């Protein structure tokens, strides 16, 4: 009974910590509401992303990936693109995560949570990832993007005007690509009669 309560208490502690940090940022530091939201969502997204690539149990990696995508949908809302956020929730959290969780359940053998999570090249991989992050950050800081200082909040009807007038051919091509991918996925994952079981 006590063991069952531990995850619930942990989850409540995490939620309380997030709300507390938000309250501190809003009240004590006097930051904007959107700034506080941005910081918290960014921290949740990066933390969940790190959990995805480092945790041992792959089912938990998949669940952390759903948390990461949810926080990213929140960042899209802060950024002023609510339609992208809705598509992110429906496609990534609703479809791709479920697909990945099913694939995990189909491909795990008993000894699969094995001794080694990482390959032998994990240390060079970490170094190269840090180098990539530093190079991207430096080049972002060194470039003048000719940006406006205020976010442009995009109305959904303006977006759909562009999508179904200027981009109608790519839209149709994407639908054909999706159809081809679905047919290909069914063909690849289908069990051949008489083949290896």
């Amino acid at each position, binding site marked *: 009974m006590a063991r069952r309560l531990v995850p619930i208490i942990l989850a409540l502690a995490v939620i309380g910590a997030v709300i507390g940090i938000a309250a501190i940022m809003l009240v004590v530091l006097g930051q*904007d509401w*959107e700034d506080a939201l*941005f*910081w918290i969502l960014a921290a949740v997204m*990066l933390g969940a*992303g790190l959990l*995805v*690539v480092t945790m041992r149990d*792959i089912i938990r*990696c998949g669940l952390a*990936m759903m948390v*990461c*995508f949810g926080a*990213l949908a929140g*960042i899209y809302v802060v*950024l002023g*693109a609510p339609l*992208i956020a809705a*598509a*992110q929730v429906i*496609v*990534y959290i609703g*479809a791709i995560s479920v697909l*990945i969780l099913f*694939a995990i359940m189909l*491909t795990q*053998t008993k000894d*699969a949570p094995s001794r080694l*999570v*990482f*390959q032998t*090249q*994990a240390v060079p*991989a*970490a170094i*190269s*990832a*840090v180098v*990539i992050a530093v190079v*991207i*950050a430096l080049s*972002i800081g060194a470039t003048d993007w000719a*940006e*406006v200082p205020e*976010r*442009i909040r995009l109305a959904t009807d*303006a977006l759909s005007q562009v*999508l179904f007038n*200027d*981009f109608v051919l790519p*839209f149709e091509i*994407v639908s054909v*690509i999706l159809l*081809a*991918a*679905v047919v290909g*996925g069914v*063909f690849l*994952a289908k069990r051949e009669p008489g083949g*290896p079981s």
Partner: protein
Amino acid sequence: MSDSLDAYLILSGLLFAIGSFGFLARRNAISMLMSIELMLNGVNLAIVAFGAFIPELGAQGSVIALMVIAVAAAEATVGLAIVIAIFRNKKTPLVDEYDAMRQ
């Protein structure tokens, strides 16, 4: 801070770096696919941020982001189907034991 393009771009760069580390370092094929999804999401965040801060782009940034999401869904479908097909033959999800083409 939430009103500067640089913050969003650095965030997307960090997400991309985390995904690239996972892709290079994990042994499990499905973990590698999850890392690819993280990298795609990082790039998508950069595209939406450019669309939200550069007025010349207008709505095109969001449209391109929607296209990327759709193509990522197709990629996930085919990639997971390939992993399942390989798993049926090799009985393991670990990529360093896929050595049929090395012999």
